[in-house]
């Protein structure tokens, strides 16, 4: 069975690159443009991995992560924050909230794929 990845970001150009890269790695790719869209998809598809932007309109990344931690069926879902916020305090905060990885923007596509694969092994 294909691994499912959910990409949550409000920047279409960024989403497009990740979508292309993960499809190529044989992932089933889902896309959400903000937190509220993400919640619906999360409950429907129960993805293995979520790539989560933090600064988004309406529902932001932190709220989405909380939702993941509270929703049954998503206990094993791995979360990677991908954000332009690159201060140590931001990273610490993200990991403290329960994210599995924290990748800062701009990122290397290969690195993102590498981290996801590492988490899934």
């Amino acid at each position: 069975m294909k691994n499912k990845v959910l990409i949550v970001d409000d920047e279409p150009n960024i989403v497009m690159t990740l979508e292309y890269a993960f499809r190529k790695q044989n992932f089933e790719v889902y896309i959400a443009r903000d937190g509220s869209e993400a919640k619906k998809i999360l409950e429907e598809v129960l993805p293995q991995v979520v790539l989560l932007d933090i600064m988004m309109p309406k529902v932001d990344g932190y709220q989405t992560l909380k939702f993941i931690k509270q929703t049954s069926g998503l206990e094993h879902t791995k979360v990677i924050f991908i954000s332009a916020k690159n201060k140590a305090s931001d990273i610490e905060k993200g990991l403290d909230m329960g994210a599995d990885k924290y990748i800062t923007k701009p990122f290397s596509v290969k690195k993102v794929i590498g981290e996801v694969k590492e988490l899934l092994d």
Partner: protein
Amino acid sequence: MNSYLLFGIVAVYLGILFFAAYWGENKAPRKWVSNPYIYTLSIAVYCSAWTYYGSIGNAATSGISFLPIYLGPMIVAPLWIIILRKVIRISKQHKISSVADFISLRYGNNRFLGALVTIICVIGTVPYISLQLKAVSETYAIFADGKGHESTGILDDSTFYIAVFLALFAAFYGTQKTDASEKHRGIITSVALESVLKLVFFLIVGIYITFFLFDGTTDIYQRISTSSHFSELINFDGLEMGINWYLTLVLSMFAIFLLPRQFQVMVVENSNEKHLAKAIWLFPLYLLLINIFVIFIAWGGIINFGSSEQAEYFTLLLPLENQHQFLALLVFLGGFSAVISMVVVSTLALSTMVSNNLIIPYGFLDKFSQRHSSKNTSSIKNIRRISIFLIIIAAYFFYLVYSIQLSLFSIGLISFIVIAQLAPSFFMGLFWNRGSSKAAIIGMIVGFLITLYCLILPFTLEALTGTSSFTDLGPWGISFLKPYQLFGLDIFNSTSNAFFWSLTANTFCYLIFSLTSKGNYRERNYAEMFVNIQNYAKLQDNALVWRGEAYVSNIKNVLIKFLGVQATEKALHNFFKRYEISPDTEIADARLINYSEKLLTGSIGSASAKILIDNVVTEEKISLVEVLQILEESRDAFAQNKMLQQKSSELLDLTQQLKNANNELIVKDKQKDEFLDTVAHELKTPITGIRAASEILKDDINEMPDELKEQFLSNIIKDADRLSRLINNILDFEKLATGRLKLSLHRKDFSATIDSAVLSLSQVIAKKKINIHYNASTEIKLFYDEDRILQVLINLLSNAIKFSPSANAEIKIDFYRENPFLKVIVQDNGKGIPEEDLDFIFDKFYQSKNQNTIKPEGSGLGLAISKQIIEKHNGKIWADKTFKSGAKIVFLLPIY
């Protein structure tokens, strides 16, 4: 009137006064006795029998020359606030009980000076007291048998008994306490009562004579104006009388401060310096009232009796002549009241001086310091009592020997001139710290000797020999030395002559010797303290510079001898507590020395107190330079302390300001941090896109389908564009926010600018099929920076386009003159600005949370930049909150 009946009435009257004194001393609530009205009435002790009878005699013979004696005090009354308040403060601080104490302390506890002042006061006051006795005896005689007085022997003389009674009264109420600086409430109460009675009685008789005996003031005036020497009565008799008048005025100004009885009631008995404020107008009012009928009584008497013989007793004779015994009795009692208060207060003041400045320091100190305290206090009291009797007896004999020859008025003036010899050292000493004791002593002696020569000697010789050759020809026939025209100056009358020469010489000596001889350190200390009392009010016991050694136990022993064990323990306890010194301290410091001196001063006078304390103290002499240095230091320390306080409060202010500024900075820093964070975030977003797309293209360049390649490449281009736009905006915003951007203003037609804005966006508008309405033909010219305003318009239009609905989109641009502004409106029919965002849309990087899910292009700086540009034009921009069918942004630009 029957002599026995009169004696009975007098006895009853005296009984009432005695009772008033008893009530005031023991029973009266403090408020009743210590208030400005009682204070003013006690100052009215100034109005003695001289006022009651002498003024009228003077007014009848010399016209208005009676007036300056009252005008002087009225004129200086406002100065009390400056001079008298200072004197009162100093006196309270040092427990001063007489003018002699005051002057001797000012010149460094000079024992001799205190004695000299006392002698001068005694010589000046005893004749004055005898004048009062003369008045009583003469009025008594007039009243009793309607004729002049003729005494046959002392024991037969009613005046003698009255004198004895007054002595008893003064002795009883004047020596209740050993500390003479304590208040004598009983005496003050009776003096105040007497002041009321003498004024009321005088007014009654004045009204009676003016309005009942005569037909009012006009009647008296008309009738006197036919008299042969009328013009003498109402005019100055040339320049000479003017000068004499003026000198008498000055004389009375001095007298109101310096007369022992005035010092007693105004300074020693003052319970609160605030009472001065009322007294400075109430007392002149009192003087005015008591003088109001003087002229009319005098004239009425002249009209009635046809001459000014016995004019001094017109007040009494006029009612008697008209069979008004009762009125005459009132006058007699009023005059008697004036006498009693004057005699009692004067003897009280004099006895304190005589005992504290003459008898104790020159005879009894050694004895006192070896005896027990209870004996000492009773001795002190006895000395005072004996002094009182001695003074009154002396006055009585003076009266017997001299007074019959002289008028009330001239005795009064002699007294004034003698007392005036204190004026230079008293007044100048208050304001000039160079005045020295040597100068004060020499000035006083010289002034007194001149008075003696010019005034007392002539009339003594006349009284004794019955001839006036000394006055008329001068001693040994030297006319240059004629006592009444000294040095050939003959513009004065006898009293003015004496006053002028004595006081000129006195002042001259005082000035010369003060300038040539410096006092010792002690004297300089006190001079400094008196002159600059305000600087030392806080230092109190500390102010005196002193270097020496003394044991507390020795000082205590001295204190016990005069104050008793209990009072001493209490006083020392207070002292140690006040300065937070351990009660076990063995070595006394300067403060204790001064404190002890002060404690003793009240009982035995400042000179004696100093001598006593000096006995138990080994004192080191300090040079004048050192004294001044230490004084300077203490004053500097005081000033510095004040400055320090001021500085520290300034510092506190500054710290607060700094804190505020720092807080502001922190807030600004935080804002700056947030701004930079946001900028970084905004910049990173397109870079992330570019980096990711490029990476994929690089890795998959061969296997990727062409249309995907094209998609990624065009994304890269868009992100690059966005990046550069963002950078431009950030730079713009920074320039505008920091005020570095200069507008280039030109006068242009605004409709053309709108045209260009719409034109530059025409492609997007056409693509989104938006209907745009505006009236391009309206020409409105104003000064503005076209590029910048274009930026605003494009920004607003882009927003409108961005939020326009996909179908039937309409954008409307309106612009019109609304003086003094141009009003521009850009509105769309999109979903409008959410209410919660309305207040923030002009903030930098504020992007609505309710934007479309597809993020519209924008830096988040557009409206913030627009706002800056409009405000830079002195305009205003806002979102119309009332517009519900879309967004409506309005801005104003001033037209000029």
